[in-house]
């Protein structure tokens, strides 16, 4: 005997089919509308794990980018401060050359000494400059001035500050003040003090002899500037690399988590056609029965 198909079976089958097509249609519609392929872990458990991984890496990368740009601005601030130091030193050098000439008498040398003392304060102030609330050259002792005076001693810390710019990748972003000026009692400030003393003592020979050490102290600051410049350049490269990493992560995340909109829309249209076909054929079929012909 052939299988008996009843009106109820037909209607139930129709309902089940329409339901199943409709729920697929709803899913495709949601994907077309919000563009997300994974809205809950069961949509793709492995993919969800990947997406969580990408998200964590993205958050880290954003932090590294922030660290990099903050570090670059901190290095720039140090460079600007050291620029005032070196230019003050160069002025001190030319004053010293002037003061070394024996055409000067004691009064002239005293006047030069006073000018040099002013320039020394410029150096000290530059070394005490702040970036935000942080003293730039105090090491980790960042809330107190590294050269508070009245003496020339370095009051900062020898501990360095470094920042993370990648997984297990750090960059030292500070220079301790005594690295720029040298350790007491032979620091730049001490050398300047000695020069001032010699000028006030009207000792031309000693003044001429100190030119070499002034030059040496200036070079020390210049070397630090070169180092900072190199670090800054390296960070620029790092920054570009981080931007690329971010782009790569975003695109990888999109590949896993988001739908290809063209494909999603095509699937949606296909399902819409199926839905309409099911409705059309179903309603045609269900409304006919033997009663129409009796």
């Amino acid at each position: 005997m052939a299988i008996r198909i009843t009106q109820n079976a037909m209607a139930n089958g129709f309902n089940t089919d329409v339901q199943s097509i409709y729920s697929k249609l709803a899913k495709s519609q949601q994907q077309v509308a919000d563009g997300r392929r994974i809205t809950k872990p069961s949509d793709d458990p492995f993919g969800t794990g990947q997406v969580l991984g990408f998200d964590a890496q993205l958050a880290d990368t954003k932090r590294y980018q922030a660290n990099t740009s903050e570090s670059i601005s901190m290095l720039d601030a140090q460079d600007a401060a050291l620029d005032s130091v070196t230019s003050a030193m160069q002025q001190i050098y030319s004053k010293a050359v002037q003061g070394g000439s024996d055409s000067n008498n004691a009064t002239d040398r005293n006047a030069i000494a006073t000018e040099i003392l002013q320039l020394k304060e410029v150096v000290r102030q530059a070394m005490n400059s702040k970036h935000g609330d942080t003293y730039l050259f105090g090491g980790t002792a960042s809330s107190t001035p590294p050269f508070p005076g009245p003496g020339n001693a370095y009051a900062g810390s020898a501990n360095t500050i470094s920042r993370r710019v990648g997984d297990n990748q750090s960059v030292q972003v500070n220079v301790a003040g005594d690295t720029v000026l040298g350790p007491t009692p032979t620091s730049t400030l001490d050398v300047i003090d000695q020069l001032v003393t010699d000028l006030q003592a009207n000792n031309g020979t000693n003044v001429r002899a100190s030119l070499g050490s002034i030059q040496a102290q200036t070079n020390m600051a210049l070397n630090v500037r070169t180092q900072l410049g190199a670090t800054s350049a390296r960070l620029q490269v790092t920054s570009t690399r981080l931007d690329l990493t971010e782009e790569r992560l975003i695109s990888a995340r999109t590949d896993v988590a988001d739908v290809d909109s063209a494909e999603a829309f095509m699937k949606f249209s296909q399902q819409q056609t199926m839905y309409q076909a099911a409705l059309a054929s179903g309603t045609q079929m269900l409304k006919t029965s033997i009663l129409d012909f009796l």
Partner: protein
Amino acid sequence: MYQSTFMGLNTALRGVLAQQVALDTTGHNISNLSTEGYTRQRAEMTASAPWSNPSAFTQTTPGQIGTGVEVLRIERLRDQFIDQNARGQFGRQADAQATVEQLHQVEAALQEPGDTGLSKLFANFWSSMDAVASNADNDSARQAFANATSALAQGFRQVSTDLGNVAMQSDLRLNQTVTDVNGITQRIAALNTEIHRAIDHSQQPNDLLDERDKLMDDLSKLVNYTSTENAFGEVTITFGSAAPIALVDPTVAPGSTAITRADLDTAFGNGDLTSGRAHADEQLWDPTTGTIPGYIGKLDALVADFVSGVNTAHAAGFDLNGNPGGNIFNPAGTTAATISLDPANNIVTNPRLVAAASSWTGTGEPGNGTNLKTVLDTVRPGGNAALGGQTWDSFYKSTVTTIGADAQTAESTLTNADVLSDMAKSRRDQVSGVSMDEEMSNMLRFQHAYNASARVLTTMDELLDTLINRMGRVGL
């Protein structure tokens, strides 16, 4: 000896009456076209006992003479084997359905992947920690880190509460299932009595049987059971095989077979409970082996390791006042439900207590963020023995993946169960369902048969008219 003059009248009358019964049955079928659980009925007709010439030796009349038709019984077209199979499928389908519903709620509680899930809170925790490591003397960076830490703890507590609620729903629904099972079995027991009575009176209680079959379908969606039927049409329903429990027993008073929640829990424990909504809920809820308590347990393991790991690393540093670091998290809160900031060292109300510095020499090192930097560089990416060698981040990630995979498996089980249960329903409908086309063509058949029988009756009437009124009138 000849047959009675009126015999033809009786034959035609039987025909009229039998077709009438058949038409009534057709009408009953059509009326119940959309009644759930209805089984189509058919008037079984058979030729009535023929009339034999009682003469012992002469063949004055031909053989036996038919006396028409009679309705033997109203048959119910049902296949017990299909029913049994269908009920098995209904049980599995209800099981899968309940599991999927609950696991979807678990997923909703996790809110992954998204901007509000724990993974995002973890990411915020680490990146705001890095901001403090990079700007240790910055109070607002410290405050942001303290807030992110507090949000992470709160996120854990929220997820734990939400998962606990899903487990509790299953727990409560099991109590509801017990009530439902007892309600159904009580009605089945009452129907048993009525069916027995009808069968004692040689009646065929078709509609009562339909009602009982429908109840047994409903029962199969709650728990698995086996049933047998005795000669009086009464069913005995038994649940479980290791420690069988009678759900319906015609030999005892109705209502004395009610089960309790403890019965369900025991049956789940000894493997007697294998399908239906009760099975799904027991599997999800059970505090020792349950799926959802298992997820909470994973989060608890993560929290315990994370709290002690972060606290130890943090305590190795110095805060902004130059004191050795305290705890970030309350060391007593080692579960996802209880993780909180240490009230004795509350970094939210006093962010200077974050121990960012690795040393505190001289006049102090407020710019020292090396302790937190070490946490990020070595503690965070380090494997944890308590978590099977995984890092905190990856352990959480794999927990989410596990939950997703479980839900996905449950979904595909449900899809399968849906198909099988639909197939079982349609197989049952092939046998028991009412087909309108069939009923209508039957109706035409019965109507014509009725008309024809009535015509035979009229013809017999005319014959009698000829016999009585026209004969013996010669000469009148």
